[in-house]
């Protein structure tokens, strides 16, 4: 009798431990893969409606691919003395395949061998204890493993940064239309497709 109860107990305890371990591992995996919340701040910016306007205004037009995953890049935030979020951006290292436009003098420290470093209007911050992706006007980061044509402008402070938000970088392989309609507006997606077609026509097709 005694031994029977003992083995039954053993089974029950092992079963409970096993179940608890499974639950623990499940939550650990879930926590690890948790996608960061995206906060989209509305912004006002200088906007370009066509490939020709973009090409004219950009200081640098470059074809290439990001050197790292977004999460591994340098995410910056600038706080005002009272703690308010004064500015934010991500420093992106980008492998240059080809310059499509380049000024005679490029800011030093922005180009290193075959890599150019520029800023994107998006970052990852500590939002009161929770890490979150913050972006301006629905801007989406350049994806690792994808090839882009990117339009950059001197920001007057020794850096180059992506202009025209999502309509300042164009994925060569796919139209990022569905991802870009973060506001749910078809007009904005149509605009992206239209400018992308013009950009590909000018810089890729001939």
């Amino acid at each position, binding site marked *: 009798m005694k031994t029977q109860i003992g083995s039954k107990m053993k089974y029950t305890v092992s079963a409970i431990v096993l179940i608890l371990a499974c639950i623990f591992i499940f939550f650990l995996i879930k926590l690890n893969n948790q996608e960061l919340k995206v906060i989209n*701040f*509305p912004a006002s910016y200088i906007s370009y409606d066509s490939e020709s306007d973009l090409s004219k205004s950009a200081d640098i037009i470059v074809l290439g691919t990001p050197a790292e995953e977004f999460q591994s890049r340098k995410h910056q935030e600038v706080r005002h003395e009272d703690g308010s979020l004064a500015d934010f951006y991500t420093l992106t290292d980008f492998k240059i395949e080809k310059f499509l436009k380049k000024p005679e003098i490029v800011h030093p420290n922005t180009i290193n061998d075959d890599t150019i470093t520029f800023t994107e209007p998006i970052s990852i911050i500590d939002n009161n204890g929770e890490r979150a992706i913050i972006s301006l006007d629905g801007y989406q980061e350049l994806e690792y493993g994808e090839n882009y044509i990117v339009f950059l402008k001197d*920001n007057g402070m020794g850096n180059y*940064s992506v202009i025209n938000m999502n309509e300042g970088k164009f994925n060569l392989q796919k139209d990022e239309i569905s991802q870009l309609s973060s*506001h749910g*507006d078809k007009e904005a997606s149509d605009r992206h497709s239209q400018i992308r077609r013009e950009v590909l026509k000018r810089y890729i097709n001939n």
Partner: protein
Amino acid sequence: MKKKQKIFISFFSLLALFILISSTIFADYTFLGKRNSGAKFYVWYDTSVFNNSYEGYFNTGKNNWNNISSKVGPLTYNQNSEVNGKKSDRYYVGSTTNSGVLGYFNPMLNNGTSVNPFESSWDYGSIYAYKNQIDLYGLTSAQITSSVATHEVGHSLSLSHNFGSACNNNCVMTANALTSIAPNTEDKTQLKNKWGN
């Protein structure tokens, strides 16, 4: 029977047409979220606003939204950042690393957590005007008043970017062009659409 069918078909095609037209005419360009305490609130200016002489732009920018809807405004300046235990909206002048960005709006909960205005409501907000980019691109006073100050305050009143044909890149809430105007008919329609007449 045939007559009935005809009436039936024409009724439904008319209905479909009506829905199609109304969806384009009454397109909604507002955030899902809004300021929790409504659209009559106090605003506070950081010293950077006075140091850069931007108070005139912000004064006009916020007053431009008065007298459109009985539910909106006045947005009243107060030198205290908290009035009657409620946080005022906060206006700043600063500089940004992002080329061509002229300003932005950050909606927050009382504990300072930022929220996504497209999804949820907020307690108070901060507006930054980026003087380094405004100067770099040589905006006129009228453009700073319209495309930066009035535009950002419009965001704080739940207006999103207006891509519609009624705006035609020519209303304060457009994202596609610089403007020099006060809120026009389409801006006012969207404001009333959000808050009521």
